[in-house]
């Protein structure tokens, strides 16, 4: 599952630490999400999407949508 977290963060000039603090995870988790090494739970995906004011589908790209 790919995501647009890094792009959205850079677009809005938000640091990894700020995003991590806002969604109550460690900075390492944000790094792993951005690198695609870890897939967020539904709850975390919802929190991140809400932080950017978007829907989960706008931030996280599921495999069915990529094909």
């Amino acid at each position, binding site marked *: 599952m790919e995501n647009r977290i890094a792009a959205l963060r850079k677009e809005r000039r938000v640091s990894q630490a700020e995003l*991590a603090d806002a969604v109550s995870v*460690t900075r390492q988790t944000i790094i792993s999400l951005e690198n695609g090494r870890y897939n967020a739970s539904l709850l975390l995906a919802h929190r991140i999407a809400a932080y950017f004011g978007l829907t989960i589908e706008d931030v996280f790209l599921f495999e069915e949508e990529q094909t």
Partner: protein
Amino acid sequence: MLIKNLFCGPDYNKSLRRRLWLGAALLGVGLVGFVCWFLVVPGSGLDDHARGFYLGAATGVTLGAVILLARTVWLLTHPDARKKAQIEDTDEREVHITRAAAQFAGLFTFFVTAALLFWVVAAPLPAFKVLFSLMLCYGLSFSFARAYLSKKL
């Protein structure tokens, strides 16, 4: 690590208060160990190895309990430290890593124990029984946990 996983719920303050109770209980176990070492062990005729176990276990459990209590009290009285600890303790990636590591360690231990049975079968019977009991304990606890979680989730 185990305590963080077992005593970490949605209400972090409640989880910390439960850790205080756990720390107090562990401190009690450690102190009972010391009492046994001072009062019971000297006249028991146990060998040095058994005497050392009582002292070592009592010291280890007591030290662990004191560290757990001190850290928990510190977190309960320092909001900034508590917020940082809460994020570290509840971070879903960390929880996922810990559970995956525990799963791997459990399976690895199970298969190593199974392999050791072939070697220990030539050793005294108690060693074989202990290893076999460990495997049985793993199998039964896995079955019970799976049945319970299947109903609950």
